């Protein structure tokens, strides 16, 4: 988990190159069109100018993302356990889980608003819907992929079904679960922003990054729009970092993927 220089400096070089390309592209656009790509320093200035709004919106979006994400983790874990118990249950429920994932959120949003009300409730549910599927699928796959020989070993020692699940299947499924968690972690802020964009509410200063996108878009504030995008990225990084940290805590002592390798 320690940041190593060997991983930091390539990222730094790529970042500097990216900013240089950004300036270069901007310089090549004709003056009549350069409003389309504000230069990096204007985006930074927009961060400063709108910092209060951006912080409050990031916080609101973060809360929605965290609530939806947490709900998805709990429900997905329970459902994955149920699904892992029998082929019959899996065959019965999988098509409908797929359907849930296929539902276009933009179309669902107006219906959700009717049921749950605009604002945080709808944002949470939309985030939940987006995060839920990768978690269930990965965790279930993990629970049913336990090493056959270990399962037989447990049977030889006459372990109960409960012992088999708690001592063997759940720990063995953890790497799969964390893969799902990492995907869901990147999706959660996106889900909350989409939710806010279509089912948000400014009540109690509760508008999030999606709401700000609408306002800056309507006022043609391009640099502020870019700053909003970057705020969403930062939020995503926070989620992914938290998930990676958790994954390291749970796995580094025993799982192959955390074997010491300094290359």
């Amino acid at each position: 988990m320690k940041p190593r220089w060997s991983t930091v400096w390539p990222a730094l070089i790529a970042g500097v190159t990216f900013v240089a390309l950004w300036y270069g592209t901007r310089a090549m656009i004709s003056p009549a069109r350069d409003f389309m790509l504000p230069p990096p320093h204007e985006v930074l200035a927009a961060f400063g100018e709108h910092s209060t709004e951006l912080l409050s919106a990031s916080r609101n979006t973060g809360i929605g993302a965290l609530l939806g994400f947490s709900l998805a983790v709990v429900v997905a874990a329970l459902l994955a356990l149920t699904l892992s118990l029998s082929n019959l249950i899996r065959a019965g429920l999988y098509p409908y889980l797929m359907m849930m994932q296929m539902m276009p959120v933009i179309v669902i949003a107006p219906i959700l608003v009717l049921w749950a009300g605009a604002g945080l409730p709808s944002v949470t549910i939309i985030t939940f819907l987006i995060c839920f599927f990768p978690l269930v699928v990965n965790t279930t796959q993990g629970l049913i992929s336990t090493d056959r020989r270990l399962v037989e070993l447990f049977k030889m020692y006459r372990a109960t079904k409960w012992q088999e699940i708690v001592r063997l299947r759940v720990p063995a499924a953890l790497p799969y679960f964390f893969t799902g968690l990492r995907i869901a972690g990147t999706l959660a802020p996106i889900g909350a922003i989409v939710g806010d964009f279509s089912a948000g509410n400014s009540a109690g200063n509760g508008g999030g990054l999606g709401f700000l996108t609408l306002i800056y878009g309507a006022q043609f504030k391009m640099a502020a729009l870019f700053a909003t995008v970057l705020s969403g990225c930062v939020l995503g990084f926070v989620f992914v970092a938290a998930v990676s940290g958790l994954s390291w805590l749970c796995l580094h002592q025993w799982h192959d993927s955390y074997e010491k390798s300094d290359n």
Partner: protein
Amino acid sequence: MFTPMARFIRKIGQLTLSASLLACCACQKSSSDEIADSAALTPVQLQLDWFPEPAHGGFYQALTKGYYAEAGLAVEILPGGPGGRPTQKVASGQVPFSMGRSDDMMLAAAQGLPVLIVAALMQHDPQALLLHQDHPVNTFADLDGRAVMAYPGSAWIPYLQKRFEIEFDLMPMSFGLARFIADPNLIQACFVTDEPFRLRQQGVAVKTLLLADSGYDPYRVIVAHRPFADAHPEIVLAFVAASIRGWQDYIRGNPSSAHGRIAQENDHMTADQMVFSHSEMIIQRFVEGDPAVGESIGALDPRRLKSHAQLLYELGVLEDPLPIEAYADLTFLPDTH
């Protein structure tokens, strides 16, 4: 397990691709038919701000009655829709002409977008707040503490809040009326020429508060890509004159030619709806305005534009005062020649 799925997805992809190619050929064919009559016509595009509807009637009248062709133009009218972003399209030069509200164009120009107001489309904006008939809100001042579904960022929002010393919350627009029908407390932005009719047809009793009655009174305008107007003033001149002629004929004459074309372009537009919108535009004088104060179809009053820009500055929506040259050029209007 995934191979049949992948094949299926690829198949779908191919089908959509070929369908869109077909559609593309079809549209090229129909527009080239119109243009084929006289190759000398200059092709220009007008980007609409919504699906074709009577609020665009004058343009379709000018097209179908041949006013554009007489002016030497082969105009292609491009439909819009939710997320159509007509201002961004005209600002980036994808189309030479578009439409919008004068206050939005001021905001766009202030942010450096090369847009230019060249004529009025309507003297007054038909935008209003839509409420159920028995809703307790009857005036703008009553909005205090309520929630309104509208486009966040619209300049009339801080205007109402300041003028009536009220606060209200905002929810982003959901394009459709299902939520309004289901929620008797919902207040949402609408066009008085459109949604009230559709709701009454469904048996929903509604009332409206016209935003122009609050004192916030922008024009709806025709907008040009500024570099295009600099390079081809004669085309802008011809387009503005023919469009105004189309609007005069649409409002004062027989609208059936435009309505026929709108019905072709927009399957969801019914004849009843078009009759309602058309008569509403006439009765409320949105397009013509009040001749007693010098308003007429297409006309722009520089004093009104300036005082609106000043208002936006005072509201803090504009960060700096914006001179009229930054967003409008009135020399394309017919009576200035």
